[in-house]
């Protein structure tokens, strides 16, 4: 059974459809990545799932129960890590953890012992008594994450938890999240970093302009492009019209075309060398053809016509 099921979620702010009929589910022990550019609707989705915003339409089910039938019950099960640092800078790391533990319903002694465990797990024991305002960006992010984990939630909602930190600190956080997944926690992870989604998530939903465009495992998403390789053809394509080439659109799926480059994937199970020969025979002066593994960016490119990094 899924721990989180989102069905037809919809939210509009005036004429803007921030989230438009989004549906997905997250299972125990799974990291589900919601991948999309800034403004795609990721944070609004998390706000509705965590009860901060009431959806205009759609339902959120937490552990099989409709969220709005008993919001407090659902909130006890989940932990939320907001994108912004929602911590008290004047307090120490330990004080922050203990306070949010008490707010999550732990007794004073339980909050203290859980704070000690988390400081250890987040490798912050040495700086536990320092005011958070003196922490580095990465340390603040770790405390921000830890504050949602005091009550050991079964479902964790992470809203871009690695924004604005250095690669080393990011790696620490990703390793920590991987361990959480291993312990059976269901995690909804929003990000606009392709590498994170590829490395971390078991399943990925691609969201843009409020709509969930595709979802599945990395392999399933890659397969949408025609297998596990793409061909990048470099040529003078200024006046070229691939649709007019004899049977080309039946053999290849065009992902991107510029004046200098054509990115395509083969349709069906075809031998790469045969595809290569086919491409070299096109009615343009080909300068170079390379093969590459399809990335999530290529999937996003195919779905939206633009790169995720744009």
């Amino acid at each position, binding site marked *: 059974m899924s721990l989180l099921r989102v069905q037809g979620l919809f939210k509009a*702010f005036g004429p803007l459809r921030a989230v438009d009929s989004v549906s997905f589910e997250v299972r125990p022990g799974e990291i589900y990545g919601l991948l999309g550019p800034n403004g795609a609707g990721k944070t609004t989705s998390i*706000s509705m799932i*965590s*009860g*901060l*915003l*009431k959806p205009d339409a759609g339902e959120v089910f937490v552990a099989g129960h409709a969220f709005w039938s008993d*919001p*407090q019950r659902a*909130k006890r099960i*989940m932990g*939320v890590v*907001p994108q*912004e*640092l*929602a*911590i*008290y*800078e*004047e*307090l120490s790391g330990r*004080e922050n953890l203990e*306070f*949010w533990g*008490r*707010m*999550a319903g732990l007794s004073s002694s339980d909050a203290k012992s859980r704070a000690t465990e988390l400081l250890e797990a987040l490798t912050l024991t040495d700086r536990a008594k320092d*005011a958070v305002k003196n922490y580095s960006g990465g340390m603040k992010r770790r405390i921000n994450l830890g*504050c*949602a984990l005091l009550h050991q939630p079964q479902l964790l909602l992470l809203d871009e938890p690695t924004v604005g930190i250095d690669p080393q600190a990011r790696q620490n956080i990703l390793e920590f999240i991987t361990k959480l997944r291993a312990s059976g926690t269901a995690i909804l992870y929003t990000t606009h970093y392709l590498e994170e989604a590829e490395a971390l998530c078991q399943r990925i939903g691609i969201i843009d302009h409020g709509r969930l465009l595709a979802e599945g495992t990395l392999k399933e998403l890659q397969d949408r492009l025609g297998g596990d390789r793409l061909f990048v053809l470099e040529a003078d394509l200024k006046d070229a019209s691939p649709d007019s080439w004899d049977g080309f659109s039946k053999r290849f799926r065009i992902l991107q075309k510029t004046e200098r480059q054509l990115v395509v994937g083969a349709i069906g199970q075809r031998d790469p060398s045969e595809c290569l020969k086919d491409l070299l025979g096109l009615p343009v002066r080909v300068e170079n053809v390379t093969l590459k593994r399809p990335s999530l960016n290529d999937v996003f490119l195919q779905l939206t016509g633009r790169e995720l990094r744009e």
Partner: protein
Amino acid sequence: MLRVLLAKDLRRARRNPLPWLINLLIPLVITALIGLVFGGKSNSGALGRIRFALVDEDQTILSEFLRGSANQREGGKYLDPVIMEREAALREINDNKISAVLIIPTNFTRSYLTGKSGISLELIKNPAQSVHPAVMEELLGALVTGLNAIARNLQSEFPDWQEVIEGQRDYKEISRLIERAGDKLKQAEKFINPPLVIYEKDAPGARAGEGGATNSVAGVAKPAARKASPASEVFGYLLAGMAGMFLLFVANNAMTDLHRELRQRTLVRYHTLHERLSPFIASKVVFTVVVLLLSSAILIIGGGWLFGIEWRQPLAFAAVCFAYACFAAGLMAVLVALVPDERKAGALNTIVSMGLGMAGGCMFPPQSLPAFLRDHVTPLLPTHWFVDTARNLQYSGGDVAWPLALGKLLVASLLLLALAAWLFRRQFREGVRP
């Protein structure tokens, strides 16, 4: 949970005490400045006795009479004359040891009794002081008026008096002169006492909420409704007003913390754990009230100690302070809910606090406000309920209607809290972000 939330806020305030200290120090400093301008401190809390030099260059019976009367009976309570030579007196004034020098010039008595024109008493005021020299000038004006009145009414007796002063009359003639002067004064008594026009202030208990001064024409003077302490209480009067105004600023500062919780997303994080926001908002209100009570204690007790003010009804005063703290917290909670943007709210809250303070009579006595404001707006303002009650508790008898002010302030604070909670709920439902 409320205890944990409060402990967290107090801990945070302790780690960053500067804003609180500034808000507490400002009213004390302003009170001290204004108080010092009006004459400085004395042990009795009054403006103090006016120390001045009296230079008698005339050395006659009349000048001795004037010298002696300066520190007798009531005069002795307020005046501290020192007899000295002109040069010594000028040295004293240069050293700022006295407030003024009053010189009775040579031949003053002779000139006065012979009716010569252009006779004068000389007053040198200390330029380093403001109030005491001004009081001396006023007193001297009163003395001159009295001497002129005597001269007009007893002119015919003056040649005889001059001979008395020069020792040319015997005791029998002196007694006859005194008798005649007494008869004339007795005839004048019916024109002097009782006065045709008197000036009095209404007893605040009788006209609660107004406290204005009125002129009344009466044949008989009413007995004083209060036992006003001598000018003393300039510090107490000022401090009560300052407290009324600056407690609003302290409340604003305390409640700004709710803005910070919104901006730092900690309130949002709380909301991810709890559906109901009211405990969080309530903790901020309680925190603000606690801070305000501590501030009141520092202002009232500390200010009282600093300026030598003896608060007359401390328990009633404390109860009114508590109710006012509740009102201030409720008001600021409403303002935060209305304007979630911290910068905009900062400007608005300052304007609202100053407006309420000034229109409520915190900075100026209500009598000096424009008539429309004084008569129709000021009585409706909670700042006025607080300041007026506080001042009346200090300066009037025991018949101050403080429970009424207490009740009005508490009701106002409850209404404001309910409004704030409703506004916050509505804002969150609509997804308003600061």
